[in-house]
Structures are given as C-alpha cells and as structure tokens.
C-alpha cells in the first residue's frame, strides 16, 4: 500500500507509539468494573427476559412518538432536500446558490443530532416537536448531499440532447434527470427513515421526546428488563424497516 519501505516502517512505528500512548490514557478501575459485572449480568438477564408489561403504556407512548416523529421528519426533510440537493448539484445549479446549499449541507452534516437537539430543546421546549425539527434538519443535509451526488453523476447525454431541442430548465429536470435518479433516490429516502427512527431513540436522552426518554428513564431506574424490552423493540422495528424497504423499492420502481 505504501511503496517506500522506510515510510512503511515509520508509519507502523508511529502507529504503535500512538497505540501505547492512547492505551495508557485509559484509566481502568478494576474493582469498579468487577462491581459492574454483576450489573452487566443483570442487564444480559434483562435482555434475555424482557419485561414488556410493567411499563407498557410508557413504552407504547414512546414508540408511537418515535415513529410519528420519524415519519413527519422524513417527509418534510425530503420536501426540503429536493431544492437544496438540486441547488448543490454543480451541473444544474448556479454558482452563488451552489455555495449556499453546500454550506447548509456541510453545517447540517457536521452537527451531531444530539447537539442540534440540545439547542432546539432550549428553543422549543421539551417534547416531540423539538425532536421532529432536529430530525428534519439532519435529514435535509443527508438527503441533500446524496441527491446532489446522484444528480452530478448522471449520464450527460440525455441532458445535452434535451438542451439541444431547446427544452426549458424544468423540462430538462423532468425528462433527463428525474428518470435517471428516481430508483436510487427512493432507496435513500427509505434508508433515511430507518436512520431517523434509530436517531429518534437517542435524542430523547436530551429531552426531545420519543422512545429515548423512556429508555433513559428505564436505565436510570436500573429496570434492565424494561430497557431490554425497549431495545428489542427498536431492533425489531429497524429489522422490519430494512426488510420491507426492499419490497417497497421493488413495488415503486
């Protein structure tokens, strides 16, 4: 991979040196970890014997909130990501608009959802609405970037052909770009729904609603059987999403 042997060895030595330094920076507290192992075992036990019943109403509210948050955020995100993504595609956009859209996408993608959620909870109060806005913001950046990449990678021939016939900008988009990118973009939309659901389980920890809040409470109360039930439900729903998205894609295309 690295052609010169001298560089190869230097890099290897540097890497090993780094590993040594990095490992020494971890302070392991063995008595504390031994203490924790019994708790860890209780968690494994809770995961294997999940308790769906004692907190069922909380779990139900959390799951419904997470799902509705993901659906609305994905749809609104898609709606906004289309103009932004088109603006960020260098082959169909104009310079100032291109930089504006790219800037927005970079901001949205580098900001961790949790950090955005902290700010939005401070602005909009606790609850699902702040979570919806967080997920929408992240969705726009994610889908905008991927849409822009899809548009930039299209086969140029149909675009040129349409341009030669004197088609308007909208006609060019409709007849040369949309048919080329639709299958892949629909797949990305479904994938983003998946991500949004998973993220909705996390942003609840900072107060943005959804199943994350329920999960956080369960872990803080050391109710590992309820926490195990919630985690199993998250895994199940994600699995279901992945399984059905294949069928939905086939049906749409």
């Amino acid at each position, binding site marked *: 991979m690295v052609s010169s042997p001298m560089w190869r060895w230097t890099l290897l030595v540097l890497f090993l040196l780094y*590993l040594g330094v990095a490992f020494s*920076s971890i302070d392991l507290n063995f008595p504390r970890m031994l203490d924790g192992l019994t708790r860890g075992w209780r968690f494994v036990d809770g995961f294997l014997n999940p308790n769906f019943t004692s907190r069922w109403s909380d779990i139900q509210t959390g799951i419904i909130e997470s799902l509705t948050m993901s659906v609305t955020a994905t749809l609104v995100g898609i709606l906004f990501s289309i103009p932004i993504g088109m603006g960020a595609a260098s082959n169909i956009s104009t310079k100032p608009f291109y930089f504006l859209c790219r800037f927005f996408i970079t901001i949205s993608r580098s900001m*961790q959802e949790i950090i955005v959620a902290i700010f939005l909870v401070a602005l909009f109060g606790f609850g699902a609405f702040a979570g919806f806005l967080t997920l929408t913001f992240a969705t726009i950046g994610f889908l905008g970037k991927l849409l822009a990449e899809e548009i930039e990678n299209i086969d140029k021939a149909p675009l040129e052909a349409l341009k030669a016939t004197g088609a308007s900008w909208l006609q060019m988009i409709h007849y040369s770009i949309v048919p080329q990118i639709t299958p892949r973009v629909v797949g990305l939309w479904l994938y983003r729904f998946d991500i949004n659901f998973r993220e909705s389980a996390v942003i609840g*920890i900072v107060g943005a609603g959804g199943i994350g809040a329920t*999960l956080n409470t369960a872990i803080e109360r050391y109710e590992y059987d309820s926490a195990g039930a919630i985690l199993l439900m998250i*895994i199940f729903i994600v699995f279901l999403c992945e399984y059905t998205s294949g069928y939905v894609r086939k049906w749409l295309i």
Partner: protein
Amino acid sequence: MAHLETSAKKVWQQRMTFKRWMGWFSWLFILSFFMLCWQAMTQNTLWVFVLDAPTQAADLIDRMFPPRWSYITALLKPLWDTLNIATLGTLFGIILAFPIAFLAAHNTTPSRFFVRPIALFIIVASRSINSLIWALLLVAIFGPGLFAGIIAIALRSVGFVAKLLYEAIEEVDKTPIKALTSTGASAVQVMDYAIIPQILPTFIGVSLFRWDINIRESTILGLVGAGGIGLELQASLSVLAWPQVILIVLLIFITVILSEAFSAKIRNAII
C-alpha cells in the same frame, strides 16, 4: 387529453387510467398519513413555547456570544481523549467485525442455517442501537470513563463494518476461488489468496469511513458520562454556561470537518 395517432385517425382515450388513479391515491394516502402522524406527534406540544422560539433564539445567541476563548486550554485533554475513544473503538470494532463478516457472508459461512442467522442478528443488533445508548448501558456497567466510551464505539462499529464487509465478500469474483480450489488448496489458503486480496481495499476504506463517523459520535458520548469532550459539554450545559457551550460546539465542528477531510484523503491515497 392524451391521444394516440393511428393511421391519421385520432383515437381518444380517457386520461384517468387505473395507474393514474393509483398514483393520485398514493399521494392522498401519504398526505393523510402525514396529517395523522403530525397530529399524534404534536398532541402534547405546547404551542406557546414554539411561538416563543424567536425571542428565545435571540436571547440564547445574545448569551452565547462572545465565546469564552480562554476556556480552550481546558478542552485540549478532553479532545485528545475523544480522539482516543474513536480510534481505539474503531480498532476493536474492526477486529471483531472481520470474523463476523466471514460468518455472515453466505459463500464463506460454515453453516448457512445455524451460524449465519446468529451473525446477521449480531450485525442488526449492533447497527440498530446507537453508540450513545451503548454508552448509557456501559457506563452503568463499567462506571464512567474512557473505557465505556471505547467499548460503546466498538460495539456500534461492529455491525456497520461487518455489514459492508460481508456484502463485499458475497460479491467477490469466483474465478480465483475456483482456480485455487482446483489446485487442491485448503479452505484457509483459498481465503488467504483468493478472498482477502479482493476485499482488502473495501475493508480499509470502510474502516476509515467508520473512523471518521466515530470521531463525530465520540464527541457526544460524554453526555452520558463516557469520557471525552462531551463531559465538558455536559458540565457547561448543566450550569448554563453558554459561552463555553458555543466554544465546545465550534471545536467539535472543526474536529469533525478535519477528520472527514483526513479520512477522505487517506482513502483516496490507498484505494
């Protein structure tokens, strides 16, 4: 009105064919589903707070600026910890992911009915649960600190790396495998000389990609006590020290952008 031209005679045709009706119905369905979800989601929303947001935003920005620059000296050690969490976590993650990918790929798995479903379940479970949730659990188990963060990152990375890797293994070119098998090579030799060289670039690319995602994720693990710069963020947030919060967010932003550029550069150089 659409029409078909057949031998100079126009054949008029109704536009609303079954397919078009279906199209309109799916739009209607999506719209009503959205309204339903919207209603369910916002039933507990206090609109007073939402309408209040612009004033709150102005107030918050007023309190955040100027950032407290002198605080940066206290952030360098936590930032170093964050980098270590991400790097060591990725390292452990890929070490675990490598065998799991081989167990999950249907052309290399030892047993398609027993081992493969277990490997796939491990991958789905690891991928479904965010590293923050892993950290939440591990902090309760191992106590707060870097170690919980590293294991959290590792557990989350396993699924990601293993999934992309096993897909690459399933798509390998079969000719070298057949050629080696026909010379009488053992299974290990086939793996070493026919499969691994084909998937190595994917493996390195995916690992680097995961590393830069992990940098991003490890910056917030401290919120639940798993070490790194997130601890400082949590501390500043809990005392509402917004000038410090904005400095930390800015630092995270720069770190994420630099790590993304770094990993992209290495990936381009290697592959």
